[in-house]
């Protein structure tokens, strides 16, 4: 049985903000199915009482002294932006037409 359907892959692509083509969906559906069936092997390990590891370095909060240090100028921070306006990143419209009007 397939681990994932073409429709589920299309849904994942939407969640991932990837405007994939129909042709890509055909290819990805098969490939993701092979990958997911393989990685599902982790389920064979008896690990019910095992704590999860998110990170190999035991971490507590890492804080620094609250001192001023040099930082990027607005021009430097915006230097790689596809579009900028009035020292800000310009973004495409966020609200729908009907909501905005």
């Amino acid at each position, binding site marked *: 049985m397939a681990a994932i359907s073409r429709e589920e892959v299309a849904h994942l692509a939407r969640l991932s*903000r*990837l405007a994939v083509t129909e042709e890509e969906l055909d290819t990805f559906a098969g490939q993701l199915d092979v*990958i997911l069936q393989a*990685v599902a092997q*982790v389920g064979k390990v008896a*690990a019910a009482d095992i704590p999860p590891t998110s990170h*190999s370095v035991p971490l507590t909060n890492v804080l620094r002294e609250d001192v001023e240090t040099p930082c990027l100028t607005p021009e430097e921070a915006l230097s790689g932006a596809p579009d900028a306006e009035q020292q800000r990143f310009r973004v495409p419209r966020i609200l729908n037409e009907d909501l905005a009007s």
Partner: protein
Amino acid sequence: MSDLTTKTAAEIAALVAGGEASAVEVTQAHLDRIAAVDDRVHAFLHVDAEGALAAARAVDERRAAGEALGPLAGVPVAVKDVLTTKGVPTTVGSKILEGWRPPYDATIVERLRAAGTVMLGKTNMDEFAMGSSTEYSAYGPTRNPWDLDRIPGGSGGGSAAALAAYEAPLAIGSDTGGSIRQPGAVTGTVGAKPTYGGTSRYGLVAFSSSLDTPGPCARTVLDAALLHEAIGGHDPRDSTSIPQPVPDVVAAAKLGATGDLTGVRLGIVTEFAGEGAEPGVLAVFREAVDALTKLGAEIVEVSCPHFTYALPAYYLIAPSECSSNLARFDGVRFGLRVGDDGNRSLEEVMSLTREAGFGPEVKRRIMIGTYALSSGYYDAYYGQAQKVRTLISRDFTAAFAQVDALISPTTPFVAFPIGARTSDPYQMYLADLFTIPTNLYGGPGISVPCGLSDGLPVGLQVMAPTMADDRMYRVAAALESAVGTFTPPAL
């Protein structure tokens, strides 16, 4: 090929310090070599000749002024395109960052400059460091100097190929699941993954933040140790950086080079010594084990039963972190923006930008990660993988109670032909079978050339406990003293 390009980093530094060669001469010799061979190898995405010569002149001026020079002053270095370089293009092998010139240097790049090394340029890589062959670079594959029809490993194939082709004596890589060690193995060069947190991730474009580890690549173990020492150590700008000094890796490499491993206990990982590796690789590995025994090492077999599950656990954890990290590529703050015609919404522009900017492997991993983190599947996939990660770390801890270091082949197979594994992504993942456990545990690992199988290099991996990076350098240098270094056919 100039004599200067066949020298080790340690030799070059001595020539520059002694006034027998200028840093400018050394740099020009490497730039000439790049011009002569890189159209065939394609190790570099960007060559910064002007910046390199300026840095070299500065070293020569400091020497002329009588200033003391560091142990790598005047030595050229190639930097994987995953680290930000101020004003110098940084693409991470992706179209989504094409043309981006970062406004700041990564900590490692700052330290390379402070050490007086000369950055030649930025090396090719699988897009966002996701891959094992450099074929997933958006800018075309890098070729293995041992056989131009074969892959140089990945993701850091550009850095490894630059070393093997004598385009640079030193290079920087980054290792999330083997991206320094596996390219080292298949190009006959040395690649070391430091302890996680032992080298700064500040300015390293993130793929999987709990695994990403920048580190040194070189043609000799001592050169790798010298580079490790120059770039390693605590960085307050990286909150996962370990606030301890770098283990004395240079002294360990020098000790190892004496060829005496008396009293050192090495464990062969049972799970990696039988199935999973091709016969030619196993045969060379066994000869290397014999060589280590002759050097005085005691060899025992150690079982690490959960290592079998490292690959599936990794291919859940790494994609999960990637799907989160790569959300920052939204077409707003840097890089590509597609479809912004004044009518489309932010979400549409974002989806079109990411569709156009990311290649197929990056898309696959983002979707796998999104799946593994989604509410219905979280426990069975991501949560379970994190528990397996704990068990793998416990296997390492138990093993290091019995032995000083673990050894295995670095990779299951030698360099494969370009195109052989791209149609089946899971076949590509198998290249990292032996390198991944170390990343999940967080300890250091090194690949050192140990022989040839059908004329292609085989690497031996040494894995050591967390913050005991010096141990792996000692063992690797000892093996190198016994088997020598390996030179590819003339290009």
